[in-house]
């Protein structure tokens, strides 16, 4: 793709955002109309579980390892033991779908300006007190409106709307693993890419298989200390760090997001430690996004993150040697742009989710020909 076409597609990508607001509920998908799930719950056998005596099961999908008796559900609320067999209740049960610019995820080094056909089901394997999508992520599937959209229909819809990417996002795609995996295969058959937007709270075995069928994974690193994960996430840090390392070792493109919450996870020393860890374990090339917190869900008593805090933390991370450190949820800030780590020239100019200018030749800086890591075409 030449530069002119690239920018044209980027502009087209932005216009999808406007259209997407009108899409909910009116997308004319034949398969969705043809096969509504009678109960609103799917009954597809889950992967990654062990059968135990007395009709119990042990889930191996995420580090919780939920052990469940008959009729019980895991922490995620979407996987259920029925008579000793474990089922996903959300296979094809899409609670939210939209056309999003890939910058919204955010993924800045992955097909900039592209549109992602984005889907989610109900459920999540953590319980963040600051979740911005809690109205689907913290729900059980029968508590949200869903429509049946099996993998082939998702891929078909993405292609129909000229989306080169299918994105698994909003809630936590790990908990709809089977649906995500099968949809990724269907998307690949249509020469589409797959982007996973995840908390990284997944076991190595399912992640190994997932890595084989997707092109990029964005990990939300919620903090760099276990106390925060215990008190505000209801999860564990160590498995997330392991996931980051595992993804970085693979061919899948990785970006990391860190939502900065005033007084809770914004200590400079912690950020410095995190930056050092990232550089030592996965290298300086993977983008790190510091995003601005807005009060919501169970944390409404804290103010939005001061921009000055974000700027300071970005500076710290760059001092530690990370090459691509961005600020998010601050439209118009210079740190939304991509700069060449070699010559310092601006390579991609952004405003919010919109691409304004690109100064790259393929995967290189147009000015000094430095290779910029990412997936550019």
């Amino acid at each position: 793709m030449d530069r002119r076409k690239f920018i044209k597609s980027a502009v087209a990508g932005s216009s999808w955002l406007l259209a997407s607001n009108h899409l909910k509920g009116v997308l004319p998908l034949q398969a969705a109309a043809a096969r509504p799930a009678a109960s609103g719950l799917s009954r597809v056998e889950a992967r990654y579980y062990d059968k135990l005596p007395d009709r119990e099961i042990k889930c191996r999908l995420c580090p919780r390892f939920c052990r469940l008796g008959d009729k019980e559900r895991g922490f995620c609320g979407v996987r259920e033991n029925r008579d000793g067999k474990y089922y996903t209740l959300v296979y094809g049960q899409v609670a939210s779908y939209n056309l999003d610019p890939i910058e919204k995820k955010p993924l800045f080094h992955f097909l900039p300006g592209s549109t992602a056909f984005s889907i989610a089901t109900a459920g999540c394997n953590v319980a963040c007190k600051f979740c911005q999508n809690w109205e689907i992520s913290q729900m059980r599937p029968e508590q949200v409106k869903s429509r049946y959209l099996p993998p082939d229909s998702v891929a078909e819809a993405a292609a129909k709307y000229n989306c080169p990417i299918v994105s698994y996002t909003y809630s936590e795609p790990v908990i709809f693993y089977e649906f995500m995996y099968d949809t990724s295969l269907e998307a690949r058959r249509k020469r589409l890419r797959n982007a996973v937007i995840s908390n990284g709270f997944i076991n190595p075995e399912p992640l190994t298989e997932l890595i084989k069928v997707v092109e990029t994974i964005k990990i939300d690193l919620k903090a760099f200390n276990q106390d925060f994960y215990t008190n505000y996430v209801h999860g564990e840090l160590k498995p997330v760090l392991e996931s980051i390392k595992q993804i970085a070792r693979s061919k899948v493109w990785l970006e990391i997001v860190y939502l900065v919450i005033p007084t809770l996870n914004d200590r400079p020393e912690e950020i410095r430690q995190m930056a050092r860890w990232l550089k030592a374990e996965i290298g300086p090339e993977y983008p790190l996004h510091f995003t601005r917190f807005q009060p919501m869900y169970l944390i409404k008593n804290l103010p939005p993150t001061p921009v000055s805090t974000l700027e300071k933390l970005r500076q710290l991370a760059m001092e530690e040697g990370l090459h691509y450190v961005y600020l998010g949820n601050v439209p118009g800030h210079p740190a939304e742009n991509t700069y060449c780590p070699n010559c310092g020239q601006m390579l991609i100019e952004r405003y919010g989710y919109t691409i304004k200018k690109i100064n790259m030749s393929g995967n290189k800086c147009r000015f000094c020909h430095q290779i910029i890591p990412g997936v550019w075409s």
Partner: protein
Amino acid sequence: MAAGIDNLAQKGNYNFEFMMNNTRVVIIKSKTALAANGLPDPASVLRIFRKGVEILTGSSRPEDGLSQIFTSQDNIGIKINTIGRRAISTYPETAVTLGLWLAKTFGHEDKITIWDRTNEELKDAGYKLSTSAGSLRIFGTDSRGFGYASEPVINRSVASLFSKIQTELVEASISLALLKDHGLAGITGGMKNYFGVIHNPNKYHETNCNPYVADLFEMDLIRKKHRLTILDALRVQYHRGPSYHPQWNEKCNQMIFGFDPVAVDTVGWKIIEGLRAKKGLPSLEEENREPAYLKTAENLDLGQARLENIEIIEEEV
């Protein structure tokens, strides 16, 4: 919208102070409680209810006892647990008998609501749904016009959306659950039954459901509406619960009554431990799953978790 929580204690003539400070737990046994088909016999169950309320309240007539707990103006909710389908849910023979007795006593069938999370679970447990005027109401939170409140309510470790049945309809609540072993909580009884009131109980099963069971019960929407716990221990799943496993399900022919939700569950725990010991199973403590939420609940002043502080009365009908 039903009367506000703060007004409930002032409404009617029931004896609020008497209930709050009462740690009496009454166990009523009946050899005829279970019919030949293994299900509760409604006539025997009614005798159990009447005797239980009579002794619990110290009244000469059971119906006078009910009037100490409820008023004729109350919208009474009977919160049942139907996750175990027909085999191991609160039985319709029990809940409907209680509902009809309350209706007969207070004169309004449609002020009595038997409810749980979903209509499907209620039907699977053998209930015939009903929302008709003039009859008992039996339906789930997912019924049209109900669902969950839109804003989470927070207390300590718990943040949940509440069923509108609990927030908008029920003014006085009875927890009517089966006594069962629970692989995580240790036991499931009258307090954990209220997990069915919130939208996200799956988030509160770790660390033996502790402190979640207590933290949830402490919320005004439950604590200030809760009037009576009745634990159905006609058959008790004493191992591998809460699922049904016939080899560990024992006929016990008894029901347990109390105002103090912690005391009732504590007595239930001891019954399960007794059965486990009798069958040669390790205690819940030995399996690292004793119901720690009871101690937490006691620390929150929700009731008594020590047997020596509980007045236990047993009687047979």
